[in-house]
């Protein structure tokens, strides 16, 4: 196995954190420095849901849509966030403040419905909590 391979995922995670996404240039540079092909790097970059090859907003909202959150009516939370920030899941606000995604189980089922913003978890959500939570992000 190529020695650089093992560093790849860790470095992609680092780039993702610093740059907010994995640009074509950053992936090409990583490929060169680790002696991997660009397609190897792209393959790993696009496998994981917390890595993105497209530019994202400064803050990423991930609302859990798995069954336990679905049972606790996560759809209302999804609708409320849509209304608050004016975009649908999969989109980024024009000012680059938020990207909005739906995600699978984040392990907060005992406090459903739940969502993550960046690395923070918010649980026992109700529509009235949303606007206050979002205001804390710039």
């Amino acid at each position, binding site marked *: 196995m190529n020695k650089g391979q093992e560093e790849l995922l860790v470095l992609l995670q680092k780039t993702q954190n610093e740059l907010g996404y994995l640009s074509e240039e950053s992936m090409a540079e990583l490929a060169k420095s680790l002696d991997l092909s660009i397609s190897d790097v792209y393959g*790993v970059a696009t*496998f*994981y849901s917390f890595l993105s090859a497209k530019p994202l907003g400064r803050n990423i909202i991930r609302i859990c849509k798995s069954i336990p959150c679905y049972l606790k009516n996560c759809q209302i939370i999804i609708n409320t966030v849509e209304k608050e920030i004016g975009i649908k899941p999969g989109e980024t606000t024009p000012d680059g403040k938020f990207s909005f995604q739906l995600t699978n189980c984040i392990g907060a*089922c005992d*406090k459903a419905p739940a969502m*993550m913003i960046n690395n923070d978890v918010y649980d026992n959500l109700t529509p009235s909590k949303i606007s206050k939570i979002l205001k804390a992000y710039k």
Partner: protein
Amino acid sequence: MPQKLIALKNCGFINPKDITTYLDRDGFKALKKVFNGLTCEQVIEEIKASGLRGRGGAGFPCGLKWALASKAQGNEKYVICNADEGEVGTFKDRYILEGDPFTLIEAMAIAGYAIGAKKGYIYLRAEYHHHLDLLENAISQAKERGFLPHFDIEIREGAGAYVCGEESALMESIEGKRGEVRYRPPFPPSRGLRAKPTIINNVETLMNIPQIILNGAHWFNQLGTEKSKGTKVFSVSGDVKNPGVYELELGSRLKELVEDLALAEKVKMVQVGGATGRIIPYEMINTPLAFESILGAGAIIVFDETRDIIDIVHRTMEFLAEECCGKCAPGREGTEAMVEILGKFSRGEGLNEDIRVLQKLASTMMLSSLCGLGQAAPIPVIDSLQYFRSAYENRIQKN
């Protein structure tokens, strides 16, 4: 039956940021006992005799796994703790990590000693990044106190992939690759991480180790059933008044957990084991929770009488199709085909023929998928067809 706390013994009783509170509750005594005079073989024999089986869902005998890795030839060996708890409805490992990281570290050090490994990894799911500092702090406190003289523990973070909780995909991910499952054999104890002998244990499995070493295998194997020794930690969610984490002796009835402890009412069905778990209708609520009946990783999702079985199974299959790694055709195409057919029933457009196709597809996937995801994906479909067949028949297109 009241709860019986082994894996959760310290959760809520210690300060997870302060090792002295752990030491006050017999912390690191098992490791000292091991260092002060147990051979690797004796440690492994004790774990074998305890009957401890893997708590991640597969239920493989822990002692046997360790014995295989211990005997395997290799100058480098690894211990991996699987903290990539991605199963839908599972949050017990989160509860353990945030409540008692020290027991996990002690157990990994014991495992390292037993198989002759100097290096351990905790593979932590990306969604639990908020516990990274707590874990790193616990590791450094254990190091400072001299409890990890010949064993190093490193945390590797996942990047959002359900399938990486599958052990071979997990190792691929630590190796920096796409989290695609491997063909097996060879199995990890002979050829695992970086092609070296490796044991991969679930968080909860490891939590049992120190107490087995301290109290002896006999103390542990008196609990549980013939084939399922000890206790199990359950994550209960869905239509219940008291969702949360409960630890019960194995063999306890589903009813005790769901109705007596979590206070569910008007239960229609319970899914046991997450997205690929069995669907148990209320008539079978007295089923014992054990490896020989129903268990998985202990995810318990409760559905009351207002819930629609087809909607639930359809959504579950959408999840599995999304999270399938795509390497084998039965997993990749099978889950997609099931989403399509279940969607037809969900919209009331099913055909008689579709039920037959679902059944045939289910057996093909179970036989020929490369890993547990594809093999077990049809389980909820099969159960729903068996116990709630009329729900399908009512959704067959009327013309």
